[in-house]
Each structure stands twice: as structure tokens, then as C-alpha cells.
């Protein structure tokens, strides 16, 4: 049954096992330490093994117990919200808050099914101005404002 394979706990178990495996692989070259002392690799490797074991239990459990069915995943929300953060991160240093702020708001606005262009632009501008006033001037945080225009 393909539906059964997509069940929440089956997928959960697989994800947990994958994360544990990845962590163990990353830690593979760290010395685990002798029986007496602990090395830098002891805990990462030990915890990764424990996590992997728990993932296997979760996976096996899901075949015996009636768990929740597969969840509905959406793409639009995560894509644009996370995208907005990345855009902000890329833009903030070279272009400053003046550009990064409205860009992030505009990108994020696409995450909702009700995009309104004019509202987004006006609102993005106002919010950015508010944030500049609060973070840059009132609090004096060293976040770049508009390096290409005013030099900081």
C-alpha cells in the first residue's frame, strides 16, 4: 500500500534515521577517546547512534500502531517565506536595510494566496522606515542603512 508508506511516523522514522546517519558520517573521523577519558567524538557518535536507534523504533512502531495519515505539505508558503529571509541576508550587507527591507516584505507577500501589489509596496516602505527609525536611530544598531548611497 503506497498510502501506508507515506504515513507520518514512517516518514518521521526515516527522517530521524537519515539525520542520525548524516551526523555519524560527519563525526566519523573524530577520535572517540579511550575507555577512560572522553574524546571529542564520543558524544556526537554516541548520540547519533542513540538517535538512529530511536528512529528505528519509531519506524517499527508505525507498522503496529495506527498513526496519523500523511500530512498535507505546501510549497508556496515555505518557498517564499524562507526565500524572503535568504533575500534579506544577501541584500543587507551590500545594499543596506533601505533595499533589503522592502525586498524581503515583497518576497514574503507572495507566500500568501492574496497578493496585493499596491498595499505590499506601500506597507513595505512604511515598515522599513519604521524599522530604520527604531533599530538604526533609536537603538543605534550597526545594521547597514544604504552603503551605496550614504556610505554606511
Amino acid at each position, binding site marked *: 500500500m503506497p498510502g501506508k508508506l507515506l504515513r507520518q511516523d514512517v516518514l518521521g522514522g526515516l527522517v530521524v534515521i537519515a539525520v542520525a546517519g548524516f551526523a555519524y558520517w*560527519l563525526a566519523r573521523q573524530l577520535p572517540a577517546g579511550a575507555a577512560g577519558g572522553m574524546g571529542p567524538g564520543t558524544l556526537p557518535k554516541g548520540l547519533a547512534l542513540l538517535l538512529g536507534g530511536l528512529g528505528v523504533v519509531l519506524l517499527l512502531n508505525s507498522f503496529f500502531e495506527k498513526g496519523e495519515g500523511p500530512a498535507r505539505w505546501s510549497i508556496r508558503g515555505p518557498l517564499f517565506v524562507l526565500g524572503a529571509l535568504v533575500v534579506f541576508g544577501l541584500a543587507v550587507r551590500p545594499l543596506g536595510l533601505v533595499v533589503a527591507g522592502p525586498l524581503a516584505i515583497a518576497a514574503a507577500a507572495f507566500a500568501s494566496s492574496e497578493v496585493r501589489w499596491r498595499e505590499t509596496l506601500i506597507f513595505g516602505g512604511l515598515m522599513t522606515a519604521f524599522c530604520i527609525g527604531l533599530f538604526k536611530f533609536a537603538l543605534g544598531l550597526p*545594521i547597514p542603512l544604504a552603503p551605496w548611497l550614504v556610505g554606511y
Partner: protein
Amino acid sequence: MDLIANLALGFATALTPMNLLLAFIGCLVGTLIGVLPGVGPIATIAMLMPLTLKVDPTGALIMLAGIYYGAQYGGSTTAILLNIPGEVTAVVTAIDGHEMAKQGRAGTALGIAALGSFFAGTVATLVIAAIGAPLTKLALLFGPAEYFGLMVFGLGLAIVLARGSVLKAVIMVVLGLLLATVGTDLETGQDRLTLGIAELSDGVDFAVLAMGVFGIAEILRNLENPESRHVAVSKIGRLLPSLDELRRSLGPVVRGTGIGSILGILPGNGAVLGPFASYALEKKLSKDPSRFGKGAIEGVAGPESANNAGAQTSFIPLLTLGIPPNAVMALMVGAMTIHGLIPGPQVMIKHPTLFWGMIASMWIGNLFLLIINLPLIGLWVRLLKVPYRLMFTTILLFCAIGIYSINNNPYDVYFTAFFGLAGYVFIKLGLEPAPMLLGFVLGKLMEEKLRQALALSEGSFMTFVERPVAAALLVLAAAVMAIAVLPAVSRSRQKAFQE
């Protein structure tokens, strides 16, 4: 009379104009956040942490604490008016509180919640002041082995108290512990699990992790559920309860305060149990239990008091032992670290003005909540009508600026996006992120203490058996976990969380 002298010092600190202002802002922002659905206190504190970079540590902690209990309070407002509990702890309040609102007694429900919380806050402040000093002395006697045992016990309790399956809570704690090992090794200086990214050699930043799995993931979840909030209550009604209602509420408030205060002290988020326990107790004690669920004022007064008392006494493990009992307190650790403070028994000894000032500010904060919230209820209700499409973009921008400003590093913003995605996946897989956060914070401390203990015992694990306190704590932790897995207990545990 150390207690009085200490409290006097505290009030002298908390009553300076700057600190009063910060407490006020904290309470106001906290209530705002609590009222707005979809922004929890964890995300807010993470978001506003940079706001406190410019003030001194005492003021910063006063403000952050204000946000925390303001949010608890705002959560009950939406629970009563909209039947949307903003916080887990307000779930119980919604049962009878919203019934009262439907009967046109919303004002009274809000009023008794505020009065009960104020009473609970006052008592809890005294409890912290009284217990703080002796517990700190006890903590100073603890060696690394005892600390390690205590933290294992705390994690055990947190697992038992987490919502959902015990297995999933254990998985999340272990994942948190694993994440905590990312970064430079304490002793050898080797990079661990960093993928060769230089920004990760200091480890994963706590604020980044919290903001991702709570703040961003929460936005993603809200975007999927179309808006369904409307203020069903047209009439708030009078705020002050009648004499008869006050008389009915007195017992529940006092008992709720007691229950909440005790549960809040437990390491491992005992505070969440307070409202549930209080509600169950009042229902049992009532002459007419059938009134519960139909707008009984006792069902609001008791749990609300328990909630507020627990919220406040959960500062005790953090301030005296340096062990955060829940995710919000874990963020407080982050805030203290930013300001160069190491949470633990040394805080009270080295920074008495900070310790006692913060405690005094809690009482003042409760007074603020009483004063600002009741008259402002109309404003909060109107705020609920702001469309979510405007709200989430604003929250996102604040998050981005806040996270960037902690280290002035764009990488932190990327990591936040990554953990936001991870948090979204966790939600979809039914994995609760709160235990992971606790595991993450305690993980760093635990590894440090474990290795110190082993260094002292020259590598012998027998130290955890030979030292009676450490051994007792580890046995307790094992017992708590074992009990939770027993079929009978796990069934009643599920029932308790469903109600």
C-alpha cells in the same frame, strides 16, 4: 532579616525610571504578542533580543521577563474572547472563560483572570525571594557530577511533560543534544559536525535555532490554515466581579497559586501542568461539578492563578541553579550570555542588584499588567482584526533584522531559514520542537559537566554511583521515565493533555 534587605535592594533597582520603563514596555509588548495569534513568547523574545543590546543586563532581563508574563496574560485574553488559547497553558482557561464570554460575562472573566494572576504573581515573587538564597547555597555545594544528574533529571521530567508520544519527545531531546555538540570541542579545539562552515565553529546560535523552529515555522503553519478568527463576543460586560463571584474565586485563586508555585519550581517545565492540575482540583472540590465547562468562574480563577504563579517560579531553577526549565527560560540563558553573564548560583552572589532587581520587577510587572490590560482590552480586540498577510510580513522583517543584529552576520539569517524549514518538517511529522530546544541548551552544559566530572574521577564512571546526590538524581530520572512508559500512566497522561 536578609529577605527584607534583599527585597529593598531589588525594589530600589527595579524602581529606577529606566527599569520601570523597560518593565512597562516588556509587559505591553508581551501582551500584544500574546493577543496576536501565531506569535508565541519564544519567537518574540528571540526577535526582540537585539532591542536589549543597548541597555544594561538588568534592564534587559527585566524587559524580557515582562514580555514573558505579558504574553501569558495576553494568551488568556484570546482564550476567553475567541476560544483561541495563545499558549498551551491557556487551554484550560478557554473552557470556562469562553463560556462566560458567550454569556456576556467576558469582562468578569478577564477581570478575575487579572486579579487572580496579580495575587499569584505577588505570592510567587515572595516564594522566589524566600527560596532563592537557600537554593543558591545548595547549588554551590553541587559538583559537576551532581549538576549532570540534575540536568538528566530535568530532561527526564521535560520528556514526561511534553505533549504527544514519549518516544517522539525522547527523539527530540536527543536531537537537541546532538545539535549542541556542533562546534569546537571544549578540550581539543577540534571542529565537530561543522560541515567546514566557519560560522558554525562557535556552535549553533540558540536564538537562531529558536527563531527558526518556533517563529518561522509558526508563520509557515499559519499560512496553511486560512484565517478563522472573528470576535464572536460583542459585549465585554463589566470588568469587576461581583462580591459573590469574588467569594467563589478566593479558594481557587489561593489553591491555584500554591499548585502553580510548586510545579513551576520543578526542573523540566512543571509549570505547564499547573493550570490542568488546578482545574481538576477545583472540579473535584466543587459542590456542583456540572457547572464546570458552562462558565464557572472557579474554572478561570484557579488555572489562571496557577499559570501565572508557575510562569514566575520557573525562574527559580534558572536563577539559582543555572538550569533553564523550559524553552523561554532557555532563551533567557541566551540573553544573559549575550550580556556576558553565566546563569547559575554566581549570579546572585556576584550581581545581587540584577538578581533582586529582576525579582522585584516581577511584582511591578504584575501590577502593570493589572493596570494596562483591563482598560486596553478594547484595543487588543481591535488588533485581532489586522489581516494576517500584513502581520506575517512584518514579523518576518523584524525576525530578519533581529537575527542579523545579534552577531551582525548574514549567515545567521540563512541558518534561521534552514531551521525554519526544519521546524516546518517537524510540525508535519508530529514532532514537538520544545524538547529539542531544551535538550540543545542543556546539552552544552551537560557535556561540560560530564567531562569535568570524569576528569575529577580520572575517567571513572563510578563517580556517578559513589556520589549519593548524583546517584539519587540519576535514579529519579530513570524512575520518572520508566513510569511514563507504563501503559496505565501513559494512557492517563494522554487523557490529561487532551482535555
